[in-house]
């Protein structure tokens, strides 16, 4: 049993069947990359894991997603607690228009932490974990919007880490960044996998190959192939996967 078990997952947006009967297991302490052409449902799948799809009017989800054996779509599940445990980093860096400190402190404060010293400790720890502390420690009170794109994205990672999650979802976290910032985020992903279950979405195959342990290939809402990154890239069993990897379509 993996950290996250998905069974017969189907997702509709009104009449649009976006995810079609996907079943798979995601391992803990690893990076799993979802790749596939635009519109294949990768992002929708990712947003099913923290139930962010619930916010979209007309979305419908059937099947099971179990984290540590608990079905997250069960009606007893507290969705706010679920989203605390499953952090998310978005495609475009979206720090709040607040100070760097307040961005990281936002999550802990949401969940009721108001001891000043505790918050300070968490902010520093999270920023260190996101490899941003050294760059911002002297200007924590400055606006987060003055940071560069790559720094903003690492700040968003720190913000997600601050609520002590065990799963981290990243939705094409580097698509808005330059190569150097991308490399920093990728090495950060690798480091985070020591402690967290990291799930990323990418349409960049090189990124999947470089940064992930497992790769899942989705096409038109269906799971085409999944396995260790090495096996998927070196010995794809499905013709579609091979075509995608060799660049024949996508």
């Amino acid at each position, binding site marked *: 049993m993996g950290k996250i078990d998905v069974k017969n997952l189907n997702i509709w947006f009104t009449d649009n069947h976006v995810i079609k009967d996907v079943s798979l297991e995601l391992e803990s302490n690893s990076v799993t990359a979802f790749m596939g052409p635009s519109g294949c449902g990768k992002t929708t799948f990712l947003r099913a894991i923290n139930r*962010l799809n619930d*916010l979209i*009017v007309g979305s419908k989800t059937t099947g099971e997603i179990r984290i540590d054996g608990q079905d997250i779509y069960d009606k007893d599940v507290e969705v706010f607690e679920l989203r605390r445990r499953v*952090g998310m980093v*978005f495609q475009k860096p979206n720090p709040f*228009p607040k100070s760097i400190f307040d961005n990281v402190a936002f999550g802990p404060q*949401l969940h009721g932490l108001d001891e000043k010293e505790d918050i300070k400790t968490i902010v520093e720890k999270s920023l260190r974990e996101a490899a941003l502390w050294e760059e911002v420690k002297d200007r924590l009170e400055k606006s987060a919007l003055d940071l560069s794109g790559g720094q903003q994205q690492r700040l968003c990672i720190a913000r997600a880490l601050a*609520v002590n999650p065990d799963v981290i979802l990243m939705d094409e976290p580097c698509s808005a960044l330059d190569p150097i910032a991308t490399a920093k985020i990728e090495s950060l992903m690798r480091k985070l996998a020591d402690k967290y279950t990291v799930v990323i979405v990418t349409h960049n195959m090189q990124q999947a190959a470089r940064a992930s342990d497992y790769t899942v290939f989705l096409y038109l809402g269906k799971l085409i192939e999944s396995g260790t990154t090495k096996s998927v890239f070196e010995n794809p069993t499905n013709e579609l996967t091979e075509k995608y990897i060799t660049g024949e379509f996508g």
Partner: protein
Amino acid sequence: MLLKIFKKNREGIRRINDSILYALSLIGIIIGLLSLVVLLYDSFSDGLPWLSFQFLTSFPSRFPEQAGLLAALAGRVLVIGLTALISFPLGIGAALYLEEYAPKNWLTSFIQLNISNLAGVPSIVYGILGLGLFVRALELGRSILAGALTMTLLILPVIIIASREAIRSVPNAYREGAYALGASQWQVTRKIVLSQAFPGMLTGTILSLSRAIGESAPMIAIAALVYVRFVPSGPLDRFTVLPIQIFNWMSLPQDEFRGLAAAGIIVLLAVILGMNSIAIYIRNRYQKRMK
């Protein structure tokens, strides 16, 4: 060669078009500013000699030298203050509900359409409504409270529309970011949407309040008093307001009262300017704190 000439001609036409538009815009702004300057000059030249401390602190009188607008000034400030207290929370509450909570269905669109229509209803209609509803049916009398409630009805649609614009300009990425951290809808609304949209909401309210200060039609229906020789001390006291006082002085036969009316206009302008500056100062400070 031919192409070059053609190109040159095109450029010439574009340059002429440019200067025509420039001239038109310039004329537009000059006409607007000039009429304002003439108006101001007229008021100041008539009113300045009458403007004095005594003018500000006296009650109306049939002797122009002793007349003042204390009652009207106090009435105006109290009505607008109370209007602000009532309309601001109601307006942003309604806007937050419509934008963040209401399901997107026909009823919501119907409400939204109606609010837009209400913003265009002539103010005297609100005055008559206030007279029937607050003064008579609810038996508040011709009081400050009835006046403030009527003014609230008048400016509420504008506040709601402006606040909704402000709420809509908050990027969805902020909301999603907060939800993804485990925020409840109320936490997202309060900590993200409200704090982001607040300056815009404040601006909308300020603008509609300054419009309300100059409104006389609904106040004539509600207050209908000119000769008030006391400063209202509570929300249920009777009152009069500046525009009514000015209008009354204008209609008196003696020339001196026309000077008093001009002085009243200057005071009214000063009050509007003062309130706007205070509100803008508050808004700027709020914006700075957020960044």
